[in-house]
């Protein structure tokens, strides 16, 4: 039995993952995907393991993807949704975690509105922690499923030009993707309204341009991000109409990209704002492949964190 050698106990962010570990996750995900194509999409690999999905922020898509991944590997799952709005001095997170400890979970998957919540959780539980999105910090499994999707379409990531467009400041998906893609040798460009481009984003590995056309020119991959006009009670852009007109991914703008470019979006989309319906549902869109790959990547991570054997998957 060959043990997968995954050196981390938690998946907190792409910042903590090295290149080799990312490659290992992607390779494992590729073999998980094979399971998903079988008539009976279930293996006994994680039988007897308990995985808790602890969601302080509603996200049906991410939660279902994680749950499905756990079920495909025969793990027992518990779903806990809590409201962070009723959090008094943050006691809820730690208290909930301590109560969950009594169930002796092997993995806790945490979605939380505050950056660093997953880090905090690791100090209070014995279980492995997977960050399923924390504040505006990171969403590593989304970045990993994006990497898998890009690799399937393009064969390789090194040397690709990737344009990420939209609200970079508030997008944990963007942050994780910039870190991951630049680690794997892609050239990452970000663009959007200057009010949505955070300071120091270059240090994460991105190149900034305020001309969206420059970001899109010759791009192999275009990632559109969801736009919310209002953040923290203030409008960061004058109107969604203006956003769509100046920054929206229209067929004309997409035509600036490489001929075989792919269009990605972490969902849920505002059709007609950051992405026009023709582009969202057009031939270049791989948005639905992203969803499928989400399950495979999450299976891979669960499997690697619990130190499963390779043969169990075969």
């Amino acid at each position: 039995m060959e043990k997968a050698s995954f050196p981390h106990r938690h998946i907190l962010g792409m910042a903590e993952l090295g290149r080799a570990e990312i490659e290992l996750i992607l390779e494992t995900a590729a073999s998980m995907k094979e399971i998903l194509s079988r008539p009976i999409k279930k293996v006994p690999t994680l039988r007897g393991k308990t995985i808790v999905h602890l969601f302080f922020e509603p996200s049906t898509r991410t939660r279902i993807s994680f749950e499905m991944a756990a079920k495909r590997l025969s793990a027992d799952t518990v779903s806990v949704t809590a409201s962070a709005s009723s959090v008094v001095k943050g006691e809820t997170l730690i208290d909930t975690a301590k109560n969950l400890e009594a169930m002796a979970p092997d993995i806790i998957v945490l979605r939380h509105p505050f950056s660093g919540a997953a880090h905090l959780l690791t100090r209070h539980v014995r279980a492995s922690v997977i960050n399923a999105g924390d504040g505006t910090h990171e969403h590593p499994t989304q970045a990993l499923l994006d990497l898998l999707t890009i690799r399937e379409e393009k064969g390789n990531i090194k040397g690709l030009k990737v344009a990420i467009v939209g609200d970079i400041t508030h997008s944990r998906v963007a942050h994780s993707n910039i870190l991951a893609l630049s680690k794997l040798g892609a050239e990452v460009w970000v663009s959007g309204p200057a009010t949505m481009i955070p300071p120091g984003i270059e240090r994460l590995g991105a190149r900034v341009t305020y001309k969206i056309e420059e970001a899109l020119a010759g791009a192999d991959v275009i990632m559109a991000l969801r736009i919310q006009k209002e953040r923290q009670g203030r409008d960061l852009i004058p109107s969604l109409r203006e956003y769509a007109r100046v920054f929206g991914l229209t067929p004309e703008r997409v035509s600036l990209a490489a001929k075989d470019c792919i269009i990605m979006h972490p969902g849920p989309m505002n059709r007609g704002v950051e992405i026009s319906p023709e582009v969202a549902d057009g031939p270049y869109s791989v948005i639905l492949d992203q969803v499928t790959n989400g399950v495979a990547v999450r299976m891979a991570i669960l499997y690697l964190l619990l130190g499963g054997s390779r043969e169990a998957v075969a």
Partner: protein
Amino acid sequence: MRLLLKGGRIIDPSVALDMEGDLLIEEGQIRAIDREIPADEGLEVIDCRQKVILPGLIDIHVHLREPGEEYKETIETGTLAAVAGGFTAVCTMPNTKPPNDCAAVTKFIRDRAREQGHCRVYPVAAITVGQRGKRLTEFADLKEAGAVALSDDGHPVADAFLMRLALEYSRNFNLPIISHAEELALSAGGQMNEGALSTLLGLKGIPKAAEEVAIFRDISLAALTGAPIHIAHVSTKGACEIIRRAKEAGVPVTAETAPHYFSLTEEAVAGYNTLAKVNPPLRTEEDREAIIEALAEGVIDVIATDHAPHSVLEKEVEFAQAACGLIGLETALPLTLRLVRRGIINWLRMAELLSLNPARILSLPGGQLRPGSPADITVIDPELSWRVTPEGLKSRSKNSPFLGWEMKGAAILTLVRGRVAFKR
């Protein structure tokens, strides 16, 4: 009680005195300073060889949390931490519960300090009622009750006109205004210094401009009104520049910084370390170096701790939920001594920053060692090595980003009015 401090290095910045000698204390006052004072009968002699004798340190920016949040700190525990850190006097900020915005609260603090305090406690009262920034407090009443300065620390006065009124009115009572400089529209929701690290951590940043814009406004108002303004906890290079230029232009401005701003950078926040969450936030290496330079050159006049105790309830939570502030009374001295050891400031300048200037700016007794002045004295062992641990700290709260640090130098004897308030 009669005390003879024998054979120490005596520092008095008020007359640029730096000499080896003896210091005699009688009836709570300094009686004599000389190369050699004979020890007659009935005199308690304390060997001060290899030790440094300073005018008692004065911290003009602390939060003692009483009344209202005694689980974090009380006047008793806070002043115990103060004397253990070498401070003989502290000025306590008004953001208590209720806030110190009327004579009754000021008087309560004075009374409590007299009964339970280990050092002198001077209340700083609020500029506006409830620190709400709407209406001025009764400056005359507050002054009579014992307030030594006015500040809405933690809740900057957003209304520039009201700040102008406060500065004008303060002239009638010789009550300096202390500015917590923060432009709230720029800092709103901020958790740490704005920059690449805040982006990486996904924490909303506070730009340096939030501090600098506010300092610029308050300096302009000081120039307009002629009233002195004291800028609290300076943290940026730009702020040092603005203050430098204002001083050159003759505006009556003074400024303080805190040891964490010249000892740490924003990197201390990495890993979501809430112990390093403070307002204004820890900045960059460039700012840290500029602050050190400003301390050496006289642009910044005072080192104050902004001692802000918080219990584990406020700190062991998500970063965004955590309270701002760290305790500083017991680490200020060794952190400042690092600057002395590196030759950036000398002992005289250190005594100026920690004692003479605080006394002068707020017209407090102390800051000097002269025959006839009150025997508020700090004796330091500059070579004493110690480690910062929660158990070793006297403060009721343990929220220090310096936990685990190896420190060099500590107060070994703190005298308040000639009485031993702390001895190591």
